[in-house]
């Protein structure tokens, strides 16, 4: 019986472990060594700090929105301020947290290590992209501080280009600048994956996280220039009275929406694809099984990136675009469900008969699968042309995209942060506290956003500062959930920071997992590996990796992860 067997000890007993003598964190000291670093791991940490800052900026706006909506009359802030709150919430969260979060933090840290390289192909450009992000962020904060922004994160013309009295110009400039940070990151990743792989690291041995980030980079490179030119044109229209989208001169505001969504729909996949990559790493590790259908998951990432570019006009079903165009976009939007479902089914099949353990990253991973499925399926409601006429611009849409972006992308981000935290810092976080936080987040999230599906179905429009009294119960539930959610975000902030100094030493491979990043020190050397690794195993293969210490003397079945019976 497998339950009688002792799980084999990990190769190095925990008590005797120490951090490696030299690693990327103590290689050099001083503020210059951080601000002028070209080490992808340090740049990832710089990004971690800056995106966390913007997450809290956006979070403060979200808190104010939820408190305001506690009562039907909307007494906390004026309607104008309310417009600014939801706009600034969206801008901070989308452009400065969600889009860079996983690629720029985890992708930056992990991609070179996962493929066995010393760094990205262009380390200086990598640092440059962080500075570009900061400059863009400074412009946007300046806009927030000097009049705010009330156009909605979508910047629809002619409101943004002519009528709005808020500080649109610096915000548009900031997002324009920030776009180049995305472009350079994507370019860097693409080239790195093409040219920097270690011997034996073939395309179909790449971790699925790398595939997901490669697909994301394709969107960065092809989509971001379009939002850049679109916002540039809108900005020129505002600053110099040019007439690209202004109906007074015969310009077409719908053209702005087409160009805007040509980027901004794929941008949703920028947010979710890397999170899917994280989940594809977590699930096999904590199910102790090779991932089911590796090729299909890899291909579905590329599929989502490609299909993402041909569905944009489903955001515009009620703008008066041609009926047949709307029909075509409705059908095309359904196509996205295919690669998404491929992923969900393959993760589920990976879990089937696995030795599942519920460590913190796994809780986030499983939470992701459930929430993404709800978010994805409600997306099909909205892709349906007839139904969307009813649901358009209601809280149903708000709930849908928060299930994808918060339930999906942020769950994936936090799951990834927890999963690779031992690699990043060399230390473990307190496991039980982390599990409590993960469950708190899951409960708080659902309580916040599930009522919004019902609100939207009942007809409550988004972006209104007040609502009829009969909607109050559901709104109170949503606000209550948001308070729980906020607690769920604060907890990891506290214990992760604590663990950087006081956490238990993690060792090279605490879970253990199969990727190349787990074969090097935690934290790794500045050059990542002592010598260039040679890959001679297939991805997610536990059975032929005796050095992981998972195979018992008599059983061929890998033992479960530590901390579980």
């Amino acid at each position, binding site marked *: 019986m497998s339950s009688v067997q002792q799980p084999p000890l990990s190769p190095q007993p925990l008590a005797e472990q120490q951090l490696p003598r030299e690693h990327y964190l103590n290689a050099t000291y001083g503020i210059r060594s951080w601000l002028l670093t070209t080490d992808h791991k340090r740049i990832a940490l710089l990004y971690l700090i800056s995106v966390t800052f913007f997450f809290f900026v956006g979070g403060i706006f979200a808190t104010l929105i939820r408190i305001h909506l506690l009562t039907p009359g909307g007494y906390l802030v004026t309607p104008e301020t309310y417009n600014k709150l939801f706009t600034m919430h969206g801008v901070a969260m989308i452009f400065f947290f969600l889009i860079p979060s996983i690629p720029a933090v985890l992708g930056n840290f992990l991609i070179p290590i996962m493929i066995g390289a010393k760094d990205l192909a262009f380390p200086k450009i990598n640092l440059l992209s962080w500075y570009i992000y900061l400059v863009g962020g400074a412009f946007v904060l300046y806009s927030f501080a000097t009049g705010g922004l009330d156009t909605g994160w979508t910047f629809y013309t002619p409101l943004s280009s002519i009528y709005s009295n808020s500080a649109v110009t610096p915000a548009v400039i900031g997002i324009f600048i920030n776009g180049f940070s995305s*472009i350079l990151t994507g370019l860097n990743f693409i080239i790195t994956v093409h040219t920097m792989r270690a011997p034996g690291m073939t395309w179909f041995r790449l971790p699925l996280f790398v595939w997901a980030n490669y697909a994301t980079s394709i969107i960065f490179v*092809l989509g971001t*220039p379009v939002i850049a030119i679109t916002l540039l044109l809108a900005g020129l229209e505002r600053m110099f009275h040019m007439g690209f989208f202004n109906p007074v001169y015969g310009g077409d505001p719908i053209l702005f929406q087409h160009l805007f969504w040509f980027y901004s729909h794929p941008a949703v996949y920028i947010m979710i694809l890397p999170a899917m990559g994280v989940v594809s790493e977590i699930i096999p590790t904590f199910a102790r099984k090779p991932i089911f259908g590796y090729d299909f998951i890899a291909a579905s990432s590329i599929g989502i990136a490609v299909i993402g570019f041909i569905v944009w006009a489903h955001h515009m079903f009620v703008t008066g675009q041609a009926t047949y165009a709307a029909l075509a976009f409705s059908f095309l939007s359904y196509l996205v469900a295919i690669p998404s479902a491929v992923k969900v089914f393959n993760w589920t099949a990976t879990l089937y008969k696995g030795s599942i353990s519920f460590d913190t990253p796994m809780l986030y991973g499983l939470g992701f699968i459930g929430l993404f499925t709800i978010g994805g399926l409600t997306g099909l409601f909205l892709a349906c042309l007839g139904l969307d006429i009813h649901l358009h611009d209601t809280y149903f849409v708000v709930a849908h995209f928060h299930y994808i972006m918060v339930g999906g992308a942020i769950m994936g981000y936090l799951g990834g942060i927890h999963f690779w935290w031992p690699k990043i810092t060399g230390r473990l976080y307190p496991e039980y506290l982390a599990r409590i936080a993960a469950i708190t987040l899951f409960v708080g999230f659902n309580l916040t956003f599930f009522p919004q599906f019902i609100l939207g179905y009942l007809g409550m429009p988004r972006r209104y500062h007040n609502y009829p009294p009969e909607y109050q119960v559901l709104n109170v539930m949503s606000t209550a959930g948001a308070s729980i959610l906020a607690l769920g975000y604060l907890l990891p902030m506290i214990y992760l920071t604590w663990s950087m100094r006081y956490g238990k030493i993690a060792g090279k491979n605490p879970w253990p997992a199969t990727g190349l990043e787990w074969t090097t020190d935690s934290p790794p050397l500045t050059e990542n590996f002592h010598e260039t690794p040679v890959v001679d195993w297939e991805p997610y293969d536990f059975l032929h990796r005796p050095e992981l210490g998972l195979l018992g003397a008599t059983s061929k079945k890998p033992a479960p992860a530590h901390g579980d019976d």
Partner: protein
Amino acid sequence: MHRTGELYGQFQTLDQQKESATLGMWVFLITEILFFGGVFMAYTINRHAYPTAFGVGGNMLDLALGFGNTVVLIASSFTMAMSVWSAQTSRKKAVPVWLVATLALGSVFLGIKVVEYKQKFDHHLIPGHGFDITYCSNNPSACGLSGKALEDEKKEIEEGIRAETDDPNTPEGLARGLIALNAHAQLYFSLYFGMTGLHALHMIIGAGLLLWLIFEGFKGRFDANYNTPVENIGLYWHFVDIVWIFLFPLLYLINRHLA
């Protein structure tokens, strides 16, 4: 620091380094295509919507200057190609000479562009409250128009008004036609300045890159073993050139009424 083809730390071989840089430049140029793609899309949609007004606008451009600039830019692409070839064949001294020629031609292009912009400014063709498509036909002396050219311009605007109005038979209808023509021609000039301005900005960035190349070229850094920067900046220069090859016919030649 990186000197004469030294290997950067993150790479294993020089070939890998060169491959990365070249692939990087190609991917960057793809992003540039998408970047210009947005404004070309805006142009295409509006040209289709207002063909007459765009034709009127296009005829207000100076064909000679536009054509001259096209020749200058194609010549600069040739000199750029020569500098790449010189580097690849280790003609170290020729590299910076060809680069200087490229920079000179690029500067001539930008100079001519300034002359054109100034002319549009004088002719009240800058989008904004002062925009007036009829300024030159009403003030021919200010624009240096006379004889056949003035006749043509008046006829052009007349036709434009008739095409834009809903009722060509009443003075009110013609007045509405003039307002519409003025608005849509302003859209044309917004696109003209947007597109050529963006192109000129890329030229200016290219000129900055050339300056650096010239500086390094005079030190004799580029030869058959190491010429990636010349090659990649060359790619960028040719790309900017090709954008103009599209801009010139789109902005200057469609609906052109040659005198």
